[in-house]
């Protein structure tokens, strides 16, 4: 054997192990990219549509069947309004709280939990009682939450430094100096939670509009979360990674772009207390917030019309003319409404109203995060050491938000199969590019990306996974960038061109959470009957 053969031989041996690993036959994982809604939605952008021949009269029309639209409809129905229609583009209502179902359980396609609500949200609490999420009130007046809705233990775990630890705040293997910063940060947030401004209002309230206007706090909306962290000397890498995770989780964007006010709001706005729960607890269901959607839907089902792509909303003296395309027949049709609630994102509202100024403003100021959500059906997974499978399972330092076990709230003891919902906010590029790239990806490419990551924590994921379905949210939520919440942009967008038209959407709240959508709907509804 000469030197050359020796080198060849050595290289061959080194390659052997990787070769043996990679020569396992590729298995095609069943599943699809669900929903061709982008195509239908883009009709609005790309096509000129005809005016319908005649219009049906309606007292009130709600455009959009997300939480805001449903909540508005519910409020109006409770006031006795009967001559009303709710038009929804998809074949189902629910917006971001949409869900799916297989033989195992339901699973969320988007929003999947609500935190224990603040106790001053009377209307919201009574809605939750309607849904049997609140079952009683204790002697001290605190709501008693349904134990089947409160997230079961174990709730959260984080894979960090090669091990699953309990809870999402980094601890395992984190140096003491960093731990001190993390503690200090949480202490600061705890202080902010109960701070009040010079106007007597909570510094960080839900809905956002109930927050104090004290400049001491609102000036936090002028800088990014990252800048604030730097100002305050929070340099710990683990802490920053955690904060960045939280920002991506709630706002779909990173801490170097998001407003510090919004970032702190995430930690400091929750003050809820129940007889059997505190503000750190969450309420969840296998179908995620689809559970709440179903309750809303049932209360207003007679008004809902699905597969309606609204193409134009024109306000003239004679009424509000609402043109739509019937997704089933392809026919154009229309309503002439006395009043109209546009419960759609602002980029759609601006287009429906054919309002160029609004379109420009939205284009400049409002940025929508694209997301990918996947649901995986899996057999028994191999586990790394540490904390057991929990409801929320996060990998420290990952681009994704990890996964939530949709089947966590099922009561049966032994589950041989599970549904896992995997969340990935597409934050690596600016939204438009990320959106384009995401739409170009095939099912197989998404599956590969997801499995490549989950293999770190579940070595047998390739054999265990039996189905992967994927949903893309092109415009999942408007990002609370600096200036959106307290800089006047929201207020400007909320101004209606015609008092008979009102907007209801979390775009106008600045942050995309269930409570905001719920109150957006109620507030618009109230203005309709003023």
């Amino acid at each position, binding site marked *: *054997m000469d030197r050359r053969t020796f080198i060849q031989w*050595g290289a061959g*041996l*080194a390659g052997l*192990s990787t070769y*043996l*690993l990679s020569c396992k036959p590729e298995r095609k994982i069943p599943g699809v990219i669900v929903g061709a809604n982008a195509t239908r939605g883009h009709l609005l952008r790309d096509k000129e549509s005809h005016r319908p021949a005649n219009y049906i009269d309606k007292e009130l029309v709600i455009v959009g069947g997300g939480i805001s639209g449903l909540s508005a409809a519910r409020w109006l129905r409770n006031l006795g309004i009967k001559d009303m229609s709710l038009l929804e583009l998809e074949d189902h209502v629910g917006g971001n709280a949409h869900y799916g179902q297989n033989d195992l359980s339901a699973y969320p396609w988007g929003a999947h939990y609500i935190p224990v609500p603040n106790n001053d949200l009377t209307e919201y609490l009574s809605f939750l009682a309607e849904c049997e999420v609140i079952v009683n009130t204790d002697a001290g007046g605190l709501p008693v939450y349904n*134990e*089947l809705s*409160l*997230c*079961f*233990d*174990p*709730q959260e775990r984080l894979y960090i430094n090669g091990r699953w630890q309990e809870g999402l705040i980094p601890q395992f293997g984190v140096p003491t100096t960093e731990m001190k910063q993390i503690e200090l940060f949480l202490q600061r947030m705890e202080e902010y939670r109960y701070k009040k401004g010079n106007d007597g209002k909570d510094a960080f309230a839900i809905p956002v509009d109930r927050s104090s206007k004290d400049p001491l706090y609102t000036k936090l909306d002028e800088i990014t979360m990252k800048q604030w962290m730097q100002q305050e000397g929070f340099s710990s890498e683990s802490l920053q990674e955690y904060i960045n995770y939280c920002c991506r989780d709630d706002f779909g964007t990173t801490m170097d772009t998001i407003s510090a006010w919004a970032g702190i709001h995430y930690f400091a706005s929750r003050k809820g207390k129940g007889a*059997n*729960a505190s503000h750190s*607890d969450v309420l969840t269901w296998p179908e995620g917030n689809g559970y709440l959607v179903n309750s809303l839907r049932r209360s207003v089902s007679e008004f809902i019309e699905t597969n309606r792509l609204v193409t134009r909303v024109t306000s003239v003296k004679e009424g509000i003319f609402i043109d739509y395309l019937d997704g089933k027949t392809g026919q154009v049709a229309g309503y002439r409404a006395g009043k109209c609630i546009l419960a759609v994102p602002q980029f759609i509202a601006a287009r429906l109203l054919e309002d160029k100024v609004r379109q420009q403003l939205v284009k400049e100021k409002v940025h929508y995060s694209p997301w990918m959500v996947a649901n995986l059906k899996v057999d028994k997974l191999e586990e790394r050491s540490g904390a*057991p499978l929990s409801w929320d399972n996060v990998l420290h330092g990952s681009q994704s938000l990890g996964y939530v076990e949709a089947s966590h709230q099922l*009561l*049966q*003891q*032994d589950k*041989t199969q599970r549904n896992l919902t995997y969340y990935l906010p597409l934050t690596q590029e600016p939204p438009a590019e990320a959106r384009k790239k995401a739409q170009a990806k095939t099912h197989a490419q998404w599956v590969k990306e997801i499995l490549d990551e989950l293999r770190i924590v579940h*070595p047998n994921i390739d054999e265990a996974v039996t189905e992967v379905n994927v949903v893309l949210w092109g415009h999942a939520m408007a990002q609370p960038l600096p200036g959106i919440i307290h800089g006047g942009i929201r207020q400007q967008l909320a101004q209606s061109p015609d008092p008979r038209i009102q907007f209801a959407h979390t775009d106008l709240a600045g942050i995309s959470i269930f409570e905001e959508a719920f109150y957006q709907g109620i507030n618009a509804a109230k203005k309709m009957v003023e």
Partner: protein
Amino acid sequence: MRKENGAQWLLLVAVFVIATCGLIYELVAGTLASYLLGDSVTQFSTIIGVYLFSMGIGSFLSRYFTGNLLEWFIRIELLVGLIGGFSAAILFLVFPMAASFRIILYGLVSLTGVLVGLEIPILMRILQDKVEFKELVSRVFTFDYIGALLASLIFPLLLVPHLGLIRTSLFFGILNIAVGWYLASYFKKEIKQGFLLRMLAILLLLAELVAFVFSESIMSYSETMTYNDQVVYSTSSPYQRIVITRNKRELRLFLNGNLQFSSADEYRYHEALVHPALSSVSSLKRVLVLGGGDGIAVREILKYPAVEKIELVDLDAKMTDLFSTQEVLRSINQSSLLNKKVTVHNEDALTWLRNNRELFDAVVIDFPDPSGFSVGKLYSTVFYQLLRKAMSPDAVAVVQSTSPYVAPKSFWCVDTTLQSAGFLTKPYHNYVPSFGEWGYIMAFTNTNRNWYAQMPDSLRYLNRETLTQLFVFPEDMKAHAKLETNRLNNQALVNYFEEEWGNYLE
């Protein structure tokens, strides 16, 4: 010259194989020790230390080896193949003799270390006249370290997942011996006992091949050894590992390694579980049993002639089938599961209770201890609220509630949870030799009753006098602290249980 060169490279390849094998044995020992003893940091660190130190001893001893070095080298090679190859199998088998396990573990590691430590110096001496010193050192150590790298890569990536530990060590034992055999054949002119060595190599090779093929049974034999007695039956259901052992005196059932009953004293447990509750219900017609797939609680329940029907809900069909069909097991439960009053439902108890609309006069709950989050659900407020809905106004339920001596917080947490679900309770306990002090809690809503009036005659354990003692708790079986209620969103009981039994078993 050609032949000389070939021989030199052959020996270097041998270094490579030796280095790979050597590191693999060390990794096998480390992994196995962390599997069996836990605390992987300590195990790996001590094993690597002992191994390297032993290699040093080997190197030191190499000076005393003289004469035909090649022959020595082959002998050592075969010896390493033998000891290293069988190391994992040996360690698995001796593990049940816990006291001496570490001695054997470190003994094997040192022995392998010494032998591997001998190899390189001897080899260098064999080659010293054939190669220039700087070339020699460079080549030998290059191969040595490449082998180590290869071993460290393929061990976690290929070997452990695909071969398992026993087969991995045997596989490398075979490699070692094969190298020995090949060297013995290649250099047969240069060594005196060539034939003997080759025969020995083939013999060892065969032995390891046989062991490789039968490694599955080595594994299961080592399972037999973990239990003190002979395993007469073992099977895995989707939910648990069921093992039945027996000795001259008794038969024992283990689920996932935890003792469920011993035929010698199970009557103490089951009489205490069933009779205080059932004897206190005046109109006892319908009885529900949750868990208890062994049918022994049902045997006790059938002692009440008034009982018209018994519904038994146990998740594991394998358990209830086994206890309905196996003759030995049927002799223990007196074929209770075949009684026509009894209906078996192989369903999840919580789901079953949620769908149930019937009312029962007595409920006997005999679940496994709350050692994990999934079983913990069966001790939660949600579960007990559903239980209440399944009970007639005069009904009594009884819950097996782990040991109040070992786990007082766990025991009293069950009590607290039952109370917060709206029950009145009567906690009690007795002594079951194979378990120790064991606890039960009766739960009911109506306390106005003739307690224990219908107690059957001729029980083996319970009588009037013992009955009154059951309810007396000594100080060391009380909680002495305010306990949390076990809810689905805090799983307080599982945490108490882990803490208490964890401490007890340490």
